[in-house]
């Protein structure tokens, strides 16, 4: 109840983020139900049904990542003096955050169920009633237990991930509403994942190039149109994506380091140091966005030229993954900004013009864009090269 009461009077933007989590969870639930519908409609094609189910885990992972990022920025469940005074410490607040996430995701799952039943034609009396009955295999009955399990998947996964991620928050009951000053900046030591990330990217590309020589061995094809994707290619892409996510923090740290090098003025100094401090927080989601974008570019280069490149469900999945990863990136940027409010206030008190702070932020974003955009393009080109050649 407390989670709901706190949610009721939060800022509209925070509520919007929760709503986006619910929407993402709805999308995942819908995709999972579609996979179930296919399985019950085509009992003979069990391999294809399992394949569809497995593909649903990509949007599920993106949704969980987004839910965790939203829970980290949620103002109502952050450790603060008002709740600490009544005995709600970091542990109880973590539980509160997990419950809030579960509530949003369950809301999304309910919507997904209603929409699914409606489009199948099971609920009548509304427009578009049974509009997609053929696509969703309306003639086969759905097992209730399977529906419940699949719909519970997103809430349970998101709430568990939230609890695990927020458990590591610093325990400081007497923290005022903003961050204490003498806390060490977010990362004192540089992130160490860069060599591993580069190695994984290279290994992924090599695996993909090596295995894509054997045409026609499709172990894990994408349902619908992508039916000729060899398993090796997918394994390679996965390795590359993990590598990009691992290399992200290190690359962001390097960007910051270069930005503040060689006799910086105030703007470059502030921008570079802030980027070095935020490298861990921003770099990971940025690497994931890069991986997703390069996969999209590569997929477009491979299949985008056909008459009907992808079906509606694949499109829904792609939109979910793209939207969730970019929303995660934006939310992480917001979290970094929230953590810097105290510094910004100190700077303004020194008489720093607001334009300096804006310029520092813009410089950070530009530096990241300059490094990560060519990287995305390069990885996408290299990933598509062995398949198109």
């Amino acid at each position, binding site marked *: 109840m407390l989670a709901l009461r706190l949610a009721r009077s939060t800022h509209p933007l925070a509520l919007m983020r929760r709503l986006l989590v619910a929407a993402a969870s709805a999308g995942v639930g819908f995709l999972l139900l579609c996979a179930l519908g296919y399985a019950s409609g085509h009992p003979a094609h069990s391999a294809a049904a399992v394949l569809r189910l497995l593909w649903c885990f990509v949007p599920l992972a993106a949704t969980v990542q987004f839910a965790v990022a939203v829970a980290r920025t949620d103002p109502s469940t952050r450790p603060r003096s008002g709740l600490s005074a009544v005995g709600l410490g970091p542990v109880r607040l973590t539980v509160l955050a997990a419950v809030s996430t579960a509530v949003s995701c369950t809301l999304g799952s309910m919507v997904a169920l209603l929409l699914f039943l409606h489009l199948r034609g099971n609920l009548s009396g509304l427009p578009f009633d049974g509009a997609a009955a053929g696509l969703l295999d309306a003639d086969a009955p759905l097992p209730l237990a399977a529906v419940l399990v699949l719909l519970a998947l997103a809430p349970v996964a998101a709430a568990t991930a939230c609890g695990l991620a927020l458990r590591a928050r610093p325990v400081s009951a007497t923290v005022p509403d903003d961050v204490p*000053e*003498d806390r060490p900046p977010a990362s*004192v030591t540089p992130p160490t994942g860069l060599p591993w990330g580069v190695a994984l990217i290279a290994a992924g590309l090599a695996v993909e190039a090596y295995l894509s020589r054997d045409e026609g061995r499709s172990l894990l094809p994408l349902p619908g149109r992508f039916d000729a994707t060899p398993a090796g290619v997918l394994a390679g892409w996965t390795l590359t994506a993990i590598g990009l996510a691992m290399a992200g923090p290190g690359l962001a740290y390097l960007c910051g380091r270069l930005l503040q090098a060689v*006799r910086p003025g105030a703007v470059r100094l502030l921008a570079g140091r802030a980027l070095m401090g935020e490298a861990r927080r921003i770099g990971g989601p940025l690497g994931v966005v890069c991986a997703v974008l390069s996969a999209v570019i590569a997929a477009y280069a491979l299949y985008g030229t056909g008459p009907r490149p992808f079906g509606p469900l694949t499109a829904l999945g792609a939109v979910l993954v793209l939207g969730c990863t970019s929303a995660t990136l934006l939310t992480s940027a917001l979290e970094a900004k929230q953590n810097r409010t105290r510094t910004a206030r100190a700077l303004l*008190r020194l*008489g720093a*013009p607001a334009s300096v702070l804006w310029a520092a932020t813009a410089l950070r974003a530009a530096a990241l864009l300059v490094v990560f955009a060519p990287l995305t393009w390069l990885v996408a080109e290299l990933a598509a090269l062995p398949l198109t050649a």
Partner: protein
Amino acid sequence: MEAPPDNDVIWARSLHHSHNGSPALSGVSVGVHDGEILAVTGPRGSGKTTLLHCLSGQLVPQQGEVWFNSVPVHTMGPRLRERLRRDKFGWIAPEPQLVPELNAWENVALPLLLRGAPHREAKKTGLEWLERLDIGVCAKKRPHTLLQGQRQRIAVARALAASPSVIFADEPTAALHRADRTHVLRTLTSAARSHGITVVLATHDAEVATLADRTVPLLDGRPVATVALPGVSDAEGRAACSLSV
């Protein structure tokens, strides 16, 4: 509008201000002479910080005037006031308020860099001031690795390094132990005197106020002759407070 006396670097007349309705200042007039150290004393909640915010242009008083060197501050726009703060004023808060990502000398040199000073010159000035305040060994360390007293001295060095006309120190020693307190105050006052910098020092500590040339006692947002309140005996307080709770 009446022009202020010439020898006052800052001059304020009948300042009134309230924070969301709760009154903070009611009719405070104060003049700060050039090069003096003025202590604003009073218990917590007596309006010291609000007065310093008004004088330094961080807050525009709801009524009253503030003049700096015969220029009205209360009519300036936010951009001009910001520039005034950057170029002419220094601020020392109860907490050091350092930028956690920058090391000690960069924090000290930051006001100079913000004014557009070249990197080399700003670094030289920053390191010089750290040496003068006996914290030259911490020049390359981040604030979170330093002690509270050292951090506060960095904040003092940051205020002094920009060579402002006026330094506003709002309870600069509130979070420090006695030894650190004496050290910080002595460095601040001696550096201000030797460089001819005016200091407005808010403090609740009568001992600290003895370092100043002049004292303006405040009580409940009004200037008073003395802040010493009549002692309240226990029995009297109990009789006066006859609420049954």
